[in-house]
């Protein structure tokens, strides 16, 4: 595995970047993770590929949030254990891009 960057490169934390995006957060989550399947997963692709940084391993347990999901679908494609159940949020909810 190649280390890509030795110097810190992040110009803006992801949370700040997501503040620029409009979300209408549904109370019902549209992502479900079968976290028991995540135990022992060394690769944790979801942690790295998610463009909103929604997945995190804390104390060996998978933690995730759906509120700032950009609705790309990358996480469920990357997950080799098929632990992520992903659907669109209800119509009109979720992300609304305005300037892209």
């Amino acid at each position, binding site marked *: 595995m190649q280390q*890509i960057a030795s110097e810190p490169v*992040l110009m803006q934390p992801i949370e700040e970047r997501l503040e620029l995006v409009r979300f209408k957060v549904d109370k019902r989550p549209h992502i479900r993770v079968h976290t028991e399947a995540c135990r022992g997963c060394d690769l944790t692709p979801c942690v790295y590929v998610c463009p909103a940084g929604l997945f995190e391993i804390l104390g060996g347990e998978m933690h995730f949030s759906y509120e700032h999901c950009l609705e790309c679908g990358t996480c469920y494609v990357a997950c080799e254990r098929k632990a992520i159940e992903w659907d669109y949020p209800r119509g009109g909810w979720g992300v609304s891009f305005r300037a892209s």
Partner: protein
Amino acid sequence: MHAQQQFDVIVVGAGPAGSSAALALARAGLRVALIERGEYPGAKNVSGAVFYAPGLLAELLPTFWDEAPFERYITRRVLTFLGKESAFSLDFRTRHFAIPPYNGVTVLRPKFDRWLASKAVEAGALLITSTVVDDLLYEGERVIGVQCRRDDGVLYAPVVIAADGANSFLAKKAGLQREFSAEEMSLGVKEVLRLGEHAIEERFNLTGDEGMASEYVGEATGSVKGGAFLYTNRDTLSLGIIVQIASLAQERVRPYELLDRFKQHPAVAPLVRDGVTLEYSAHMIPEGGWQLVPRLVRAGLLVAGDAAALVFAAGIFLEGMNFAVASGLAAAETALEAHRHGDFSTATLMGYRKRLEQSFVLQDLQRFRLTPAFVNNERLQNLYPELLCQAAEQVFRSEGRPRKKLGSTILATLRSKVSLWTLLRDGWQAGRALFF
């Protein structure tokens, strides 16, 4: 069944594929429902975004360029090989691309998609926003409608056009598309930066409404397979990276870190300096090419646009919206024909596939079917851009010492990192992928 729940055609997704189809069908006098899960068309949609061959719209909207919300027409194309601290560019410009209907234009999808959908509505299509289509309805093997996620959410039509985007749950539910692998899907992340009209014209050598489409390989995405783009809008820049999902996971880098690295590259930083980020966005792109195109048809159902993986990502070509529009129009023609004959069988609807085979849509994807794999070649991604820059540096370096002729300078640089045999083999593959 209520009469208002019965349509001639249901189109799922108000992106370029869906809205083009809905527009064509409504113009022909059919009752069309155009269903969009976003609050408005374009709310969920992200492209680079250059819309190539916008002239495809001329048949339905003869003077579209006077009213379409285009940002700039592309007269300058740049391809850059990025090394760690250097850059080698091919830079092409022509005024021949400045003539309507234009060769390519930059668009902002929330604006553009809204406009295109509004044309379908003007023609008589019923646009239903904020509505997710959860499933298809069947009568035997035949699709006869859709199930929306809302009360009274059952709509019927003898033909459904699934233009529901890259994830296309409908194509999968209908058994036309398989599960995706992380090798054939890419992730694009993008920022829109406000720079101001004047700065854009000055910085990119543009006049008036001229625009630039610039793409990068090599150090643009570090060791991750992919590339970067920088496009000019009227007073903003769209810039981002597009990376193979499998490679991103393997290299364990976050996409927004790559984006920041790209913005800080010495060849890119001066171009984006003082840019104010307006929005951050992301989208999955079916870049697998020919092998990813699903079965396009079953009785009562046609699949178009990203949902059918009709994306042309072939190195120097990065096109999708034109493929979406062309496939949407072909789907509309086929649905019309089916209505004329009152026959919605697979056999009749296969006319859709034939139309795509006769157009650039499937011809380009097939002809360049080797290109996606070639573009992801390890050396093309991580070695050759740096070597090209090193070779150029050796050629231009002036140290008060006698020079060798260029051939031996370049060859010496290349052969320091790669064997002649590998070079020849990669050269041959590049040829097969793009040239012959």
